[in-house]
């Protein structure tokens, strides 16, 4: 196998055993990128020189603890010191932060080698990466299809073996849905588990940084590095962080798994339901207790989400006003015009739509009917989960209603696009950890299974995901985007 095909933990072993140098690995990765990137288009920014430099330093030091010497990518919403951070938006096209996000600095300190910044839907608003202001990313399993979104670049790059792992963000499914579409592992930790400092905010009460990898073990390794209290993020809490690799045990005997009937209803493709049900049988076979449960307010999560998230976004994106950074309209005669034309030209259609929607939901006369109502419904959604978790350790469902769709297929009506998030959004609304792992194929396209855990119980997700992975071989299937 070529070096670029190896997983994070396999690369760790190579480095430890001196079977490969970091420089060789980074070169292999850039070789792969050169071969497939023109088709996949996962990266907005690549830094070959910087990466090689870092790799050589790692080799010289000879310390290969943690992820030292191993390449990775960051979703382009995560600020990286000295490297452009665009959020896939024209308004930040040339923005170079002079600070690192906490997750970026933690990976940097652990010795990781940043390869580049990954494409996404503009400001994380979208489910296909077609909303990138620059170019769409393609699904490595079928180049005519989308990789999902908003972290589509991260998912596609990991699936196409351009990098062994990447970070993304998930506000309503933006890690799990593309992980599902691209057949990789995607973990969204509990709200508050990982620092949001330096991650450009979309919806602050929902956003969470997480991991893409090809195997569950890698996900645990990276979570070990990025999770844990950050004094720079008041919502990143001081709750003890276990060693997540300790959950990599092939043993789920007695684990109580619930599958919500509301997540297997019409609107979810039959092939997907069947695939996930088959996976549930596997769990039963492995000794878990599997039962149907109910989350009665599920159908209200999506409409509530599409009020809460845009409302927060309308405030979070207000700072892009052309004064301190980013794009500016120099022609405007006064400040109101400057703000309005800068923002109109700098933001894409979907972003403008959500800003308008959020502004409306918060505006005088509509606050109670829309925003406040949504917060109340959010409480009901959380209560549903609390109730189920009184009796169950884990909830399992499909990650997405369909497999990856074709480019251009869902660009007309926003509501159609929003339906992609119907199975992932409730987890963000309840602040829970969620994970998508490959669990089969429908028409040669990957299907993801969503694991949902109790707050701060990422360990159980990793344990259940690992057990499934060890007893199936879906994770070993690799797409072949073809070499140019």
């Amino acid at each position: 196998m070529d070096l670029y095909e190896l997983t994070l933990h396999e690369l760790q072993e190579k480095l430890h055993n001196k079977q490969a140098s970091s420089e060789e690995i980074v070169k292999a990765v850039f070789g792969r990128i050169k071969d497939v990137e023109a088709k996949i288009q996962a990266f907005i920014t690549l830094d070959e020189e910087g990466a090689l430099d870092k790799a050589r330093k790692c080799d010289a030091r000879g310390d290969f603890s943690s992820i030292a010497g191993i390449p990775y990518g960051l979703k382009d919403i995560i600020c990286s010191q000295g490297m452009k951070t665009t959020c896939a938006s024209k308004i930040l096209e040339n923005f170079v932060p002079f600070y690192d996000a906490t997750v970026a600095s933690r990976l940097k300190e652990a010795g990781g080698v940043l390869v580049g910044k990954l494409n996404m839907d503009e400001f994380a608003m979208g489910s296909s990466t077609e909303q990138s202001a620059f170019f769409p990313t393609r699904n490595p399993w079928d180049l005519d299809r989308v990789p999902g979104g908003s972290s589509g670049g991260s998912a596609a790059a990991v699936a196409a073996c351009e990098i062994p792992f990447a970070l993304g963000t998930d506000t309503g499914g933006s890690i799990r849905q593309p992980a599902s579409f691209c057949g990789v592992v995607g973990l969204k930790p509990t709200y508050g588990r990982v620092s949001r400092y330096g991650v450009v905010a979309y919806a602050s009460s929902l956003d969470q940084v997480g991991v893409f990898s090809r195997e569950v073990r890698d996900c645990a390794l990276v979570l070990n590095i990025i999770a844990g209290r950050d004094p720079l993020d008041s919502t990143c809490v001081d709750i003890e962080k276990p060693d997540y690799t300790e959950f990599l045990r092939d043993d789920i005997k007695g684990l109580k798994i619930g599958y919500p009937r509301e997540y297997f209803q019409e609107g979810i493709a039959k092939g997907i339901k069947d695939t996930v049900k088959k996976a549930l049988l596997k769990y039963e076979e492995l000794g878990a207790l599997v039962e149907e449960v109910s989350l009665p307010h599920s159908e209200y999560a999506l409409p509530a989400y599409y009020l809460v998230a845009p409302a927060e976004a309308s405030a979070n994106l207000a700072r892009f006003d052309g004064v301190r950074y980013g794009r500016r309209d120099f022609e405007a005669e006064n400040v109101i015009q400057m703000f309005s034309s800068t923002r109109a030209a700098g933001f894409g259609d979907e972003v403008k739509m959500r800003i308008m929607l959020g502004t409306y939901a918060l505006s005088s006369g509509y606050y109670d009917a829309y925003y406040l109502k949504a917060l109340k419904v959010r409480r009901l959604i959380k209560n549903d989960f609390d109730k189920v978790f009184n009796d169950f350790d884990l909830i399992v469902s499909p990650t997405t209603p369909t497999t990856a769709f074709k480019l251009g297929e869902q660009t007309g009506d926003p509501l159609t696009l929003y339906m992609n998030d119907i199975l992932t959004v409730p987890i963000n609304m309840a602040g829970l950890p969620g994970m998508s792992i490959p669990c089969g194929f429908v028409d040669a396209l990957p299907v993801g299974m969503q694991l949902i855990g109790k707050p701060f119980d990422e360990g159980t997700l990793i344990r259940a995901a690992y057990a499934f992975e060890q007893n199936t071989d879906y994770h070993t299937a690799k797409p072949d985007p073809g070499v140019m």
Partner: protein
Amino acid sequence: MTLSIQEVQHVALLARLNLGEEEKEKYAEQLGSILQYADKLNELDTEGVEPLDHILPVFNVFREDKVIPGPDREEILANAPLVEEGQYKVPKII
């Protein structure tokens, strides 16, 4: 359901977004259909339900009152579109 053009215009002003006539019409329709979808929430009786504004059961997160000097002014201003005398330059207010 669609929003009126005046409503769209008002929201666009609040949000500081210059919209062309076509855009206004598009947003009037799209916003209308999303809000109609949101009206689904009215099926639920939420009387007496406490709004969930903070998901974490966490309170009183503080930092110590300690000064840490910020970065150099040049670094802060490096991304600014227009700077004069160490300050951000903007067009007149009115």
